[in-house]
């Protein structure tokens, strides 16, 4: 099936700053596709080009097979939910939602019927005649969505739609947004810097950094199999290890020497060979922390360390454990906190272990990405 929306080799500079650098992305019909990245990574520029507010310097944008690169915004069948909602302050919610249909000069009766349907979808029927200044942030958010959806766009662009809401509301709106998507079935292009939002709502995610795409994949792929140190560190938290291959164990596994560690077995999905330098990413929750030395197992790596920092988080506790030069971040869930074995404490000597398949080999590593890791003050 050909992609529904595709960005082909898009580049865009503002002055000497390359905001978007040769980006190609394909979005399928009906999916929620997220562009995820830190501020300034070019995701908003990409969205604005899709909406028609910016023109790419090179490359083209195809929507359902039609080149829309140079079509002005008001002629595109694309609607946007703006980050700050951009509701019209002088119009009631009803008139805000009706705006697109009024511009299209649709018959009054039809407009009212459509608006009523939308008000119902976003549960704002009771507030229809209020001005935007008199409703809450979450309600504004819903008006913005209804105002865009009423035009039945081919693609709905959402520019950090939840950024202005507080945490609880954000989580609730995310579920609601997902529900609305299920109901209308329109393709969503979702821009966010919040990896939690992106993972939660998306069918596919494109992780962006400095104007380029780092990785495109399903949420589980970008989380479990990050290709670069940036993706690994930006999405969730992780630990990086630098080592050298000392032995190939058949075609599937490698023995890797990491300074200060006993020999470590690593799943070889990157076709690495003896003598190659490798960079591993291991997620904090992949580690088991125990006081007792774990039983020998060829699929489990183990190393001894000292607990340097403990932060209790309710559902789990974070431990930072020192092994030579490494400070390893780990998560430990509490199933039955009070009845667990004696809780692990600061300065305890503990064993860290992880499955050989959980040490994921990175294709690209940049030392600068270490800054994204969550580490306590040294």
């Amino acid at each position, binding site marked *: 099936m050909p992609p529904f929306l595709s960005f082909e080799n898009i580049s865009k500079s503002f002055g000497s700053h390359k905001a978007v650098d040769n980006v190609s992305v394909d979005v399928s019909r009906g999916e929620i596709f997220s562009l995820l990245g830190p501020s300034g990574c070019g995701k908003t520029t990409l969205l604005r080009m899709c909406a028609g507010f910016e023109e790419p310097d090179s490359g083209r944008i195809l929507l359902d097979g039609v080149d829309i690169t140079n079509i002005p915004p008001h002629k595109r069948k694309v609607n946007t939910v703006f980050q700050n909602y951009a509701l019209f302050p002088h119009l009631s919610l009803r008139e805000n939602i009706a705006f697109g249909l009024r511009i299209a000069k649709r018959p009054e009766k039809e407009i009212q019927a459509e608006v009523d349907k939308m008000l119902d979808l976003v549960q704002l029927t009771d507030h229809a005649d209020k001005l935007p*200044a008199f409703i809450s942030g979450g309600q504004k958010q819903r008006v913005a969505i209804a105002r865009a959806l009423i035009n039945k766009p081919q693609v709905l662009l959402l520019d950090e739609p939840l950024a202005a809401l507080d945490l609880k509301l954000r989580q609730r709106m995310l579920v609601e947004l997902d529900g609305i998507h299920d109901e209308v079935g329109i393709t969503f292009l979702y821009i966010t810097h919040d990896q939690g939002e992106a993972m939660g709502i998306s069918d596919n995610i494109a992780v962006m950094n400095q104007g380029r795409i780092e990785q495109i994949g399903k949420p589980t792929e970008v989380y479990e199999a990050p290709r670069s140190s940036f993706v690994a560190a930006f999405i969730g938290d992780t630990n990086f290890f630098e080592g050298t291959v000392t032995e190939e164990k058949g075609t599937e596994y490698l023995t890797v020497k990491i300074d200060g560690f006993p020999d470590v077995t690593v799943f070889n999905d990157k076709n690495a060979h003896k003598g190659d330098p490798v960079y591993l990413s291991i997620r904090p929750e992949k580690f088991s922390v125990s006081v007792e030395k774990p039983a020998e197992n060829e699929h489990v790596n183990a190393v001894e360390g000292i607990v340097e920092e403990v932060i209790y988080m309710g559902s789990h506790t974070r431990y930072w454990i020192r092994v030579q030069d490494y400070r390893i971040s780990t998560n430990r869930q509490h199933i039955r906190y009070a009845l667990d074995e004696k809780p692990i404490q600061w300065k305890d000597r503990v064993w860290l272990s992880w499955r050989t398949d959980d040490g994921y080999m990175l294709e690209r590593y940049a030392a600068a990405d270490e800054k994204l890791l969550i580490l306590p003050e040294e």
Partner: protein
Amino acid sequence: MKRSSLPLLTTIAVLVFFYFPLVLVTIESFNASKYGGPWTGFSLRWYKTLFTDAEVFRALKNTLIVGVVSTLVSMVLGTVAAFALHRFKGKLQAAHYGLIYLPLVVPDILMGISLLLFFVALKVELSLVTISIAHISFCISYVTMVVLGRLQDFDFSVMDAAQDLGADRLTAFRKILLPLLAPGILAGGLLAFTLSIDDFVITFFVSGPGSTTLPVYIYSMMKHGSPPVINALSVVLLAVTFVLVLYSQFLNHGGKENA
């Protein structure tokens, strides 16, 4: 802790300083005494004299004509200038801003003299036209400043939103930008109007025979008229100005709440 009474005293002192003279004029305008001064009884005769004086009404008519014309013209020009200042950032814009700002700080007497010299040099006869031009030259600045202030905290993403929803630029301007800026433009206009109708210094220089405005007429009454009638006239002017300023404040404020 005992709260200091200093802020209260300061407030009272400031209020007295600012408004006591106005209160005095108002009271005096109802004083039956022919020469002002001690209270000799309540009377509306000065108002009666005032409203039967044909000269006063001629001056009032002139004032209103000048006020309305210079307000409307400066509303348009001032708004355009504010847009230009806000939208385009160039080296020349600093000079533009300076030019717009200048009339706010240049002494009136200087503006009056220079405008007079200008008209004389061009051999333009002094009339309501010259007064209007003079008023426009300073009213523009006020309108521009008020509208520019609105533009600076205007969220232009609503313009993007309008276009995103299918409106072309012109429609977006007409349906979104203009209605949202209207209170600001109107507030600037009202400010311009109040400044125009009570301007004396500049008008004094550029008005010719037959084009006397109210403030200029009041001045001539001071010399050879009756003070109580001037008091009455002042109170009327005061009331009109007060209402206009209040309304302009209301517009500027009420509009912002919605933004």
